[in-house]
């Protein structure tokens, strides 16, 4: 059973439909990457999965239908989202941002504190800055914070929307290394959106190519880069 299975998923904004009947699968333990140009509908896909915009079709999590659930209920079911542009809370401290990530949890403050220590271990730079305002962090640190905050809800599936946006290539590499490590060590399944194929392809278990709200190709990184037309048209190398 796949951890995420979206069928005939359509979504949009008001009268405008942006996403047309896409099918999307994430298997347990995979890193699935959605590639697409600016405006292709990648963010819309993420929002449709997390339930923050109205959607048609069906979304299943571990075989359970979550199509009708509200965004907070979907978080409780184990889907955490790092929204595009990070969405950290600038006026809260790093520590309080992490605590805010545990809003859905009711397993006691000791368990929450233990998880914070765990993510501070994974992101030492956040540990050094735990009492600072999140707004005073660098872009890369804020992205790490956004990921750590999402992990605080103990997700089975992490949705990550263009984490490389606005980051220097070196920082992006570091960030992707962290995501890969979380995937290997913690068994976290990841659905990641990227514009830049070079950066994300090598760590992807599978790749979807999105164009104007439709999936135009799907396969492993090798399969897609082996196809000359796809490589030239979409991957740009």
């Amino acid at each position, binding site marked *: 059973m796949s951890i995420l299975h979206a069928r005939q998923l359509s979504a949009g904004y008001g009268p405008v439909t942006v996403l047309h009947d896409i099918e999307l699968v994430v298997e347990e333990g995979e890193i699935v990457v959605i590639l697409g140009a600016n405006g292709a509908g990648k963010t819309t896909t993420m929002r449709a999965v997390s339930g923050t915009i109205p959607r048609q079709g069906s979304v299943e999590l571990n075989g359970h239908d979550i199509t009708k659930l*509200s965004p907070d209920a979907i978080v409780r079911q184990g889907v955490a989202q790092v929204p595009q542009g990070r969405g950290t809370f600038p006026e809260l401290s790093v520590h309080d941002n992490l605590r805010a990530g545990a*809003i859905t949890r009711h397993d006691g403050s000791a368990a929450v504190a233990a998880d914070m220590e765990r993510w501070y271990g994974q992101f030492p730079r956040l540990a050094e800055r735990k009492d600072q305002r999140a707004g005073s962090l660098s872009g890369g640190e804020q992205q790490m914070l956004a990921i750590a905050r999402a992990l605080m809800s103990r997700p089975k599936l992490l949705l990550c929307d263009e984490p490389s946006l606005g980051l220097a290539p070196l920082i992006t590499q570091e960030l992707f290394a962290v995501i890969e490590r979380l995937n290997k060590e913690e068994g976290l399944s990841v659905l990641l959106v990227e514009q830049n194929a070079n950066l994300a392809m090598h760590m992807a278990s599978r790749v979807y190519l999105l164009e104007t709200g439709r999936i135009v190709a799907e396969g492993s990184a090798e399969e897609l880069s082996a196809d000359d037309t796809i490589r030239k048209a979409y991957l740009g190398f």
Partner: protein
Amino acid sequence: MKTIATIKSGGTASWAIRLVTAAVVVYLMFWIPTSASNGMIDSCITALTLMAAAMSLNLLLGYTGLISIGHSAFFGIGAYTTGILVSRYGWSPFQTLAVAFVIAFVVGALVSLPALRIKGVYLALVTLALGLVFPQLVKAQKLEWLTGGARGLDKTGFRFTKDNPTYEIFGWNPWGSLRGENVKPFHYWIAMIIVIGVYLVCRGVVKSRAGRSMIAIRDNETAAAVMGVNLAITKALVFGLSAALCALPGSLSAIRTGNVTPDSTNITVQGAITFLIVMVVGGAGSLWGPIIGAGLFVFITELTGDWSDPDQIPGIIRPLFSWSNTPPGSGIFAILLIVLMFVAPFGIVGMWRRLVARFVTVTPRPAGTGTIESVVSAPAEA
């Protein structure tokens, strides 16, 4: 930037500052009812009333980013609940506070339902309508048996009789005489307890899990939702709580003046606007902002209370205000608001923090529970 002093948060110096501040506040708290003139005690009660109302609004706008230009209606609900129960049904005023709280909570939560769907200027308009409708509603002919119509209600406060005890402590009596000769200190203490209560509730909420949800909604609603904040329930609860807290100073006003009329300032929309301005001038999104704003507002209006007579205006500034034939207090405060929006958009508390930061470094830099920054400048959500 190099500063004169460095204070370690949680260190001895920071505790010393807190201790001194607390000592001054407590000293003033007792000095006013025992040593100040009756007129000054009265002004203080007015200020305390406004503080509680502005603090309640701060939970909504300052911490959750939801606007209300109709909080006078909740103030009115408090005043009328107390007024009706005391004058018509003979309740003790203290008991009515709880009822006012509950009624305002329910009405507030119901009113918030549109707040779940609408934002910004539309929410402002819906709440404005509420504020406009409330005085009309209580004046309605059909409700006259209950609300007293346009005349309102009287005998809504405590009855002071010769048989009341005096509660002196070795001849010292900060509560005034409950036998009717000197009741201002007694009302002062009710006001003070309400303000302390509202402050503690606000503080508790803001620093709790609920407070983090509220600030999350204010700073980035989408991010809050994908973190699992239930937007609908959180907003409804905050609206309800804010309304309920605003009803308490309303009840207090009925208790203090002994009557309730639909045209008294704090029950009309003008009151709602005053709460709003006072809060923003003091510093929205900070616990002390509304307290400082309300204090300053009452100070200015009292200071300029007789300036409608040009001879009362101190010499140098007479030409500035002699054209006005009403006391210019609110006008001065309005100008202060405009000026502050330019030089210190986060109010007096924000300005104070910036000033302190010039001279003193607090380490580690406190993150606090946030200023209203993100309400003023829309969150950068892509």
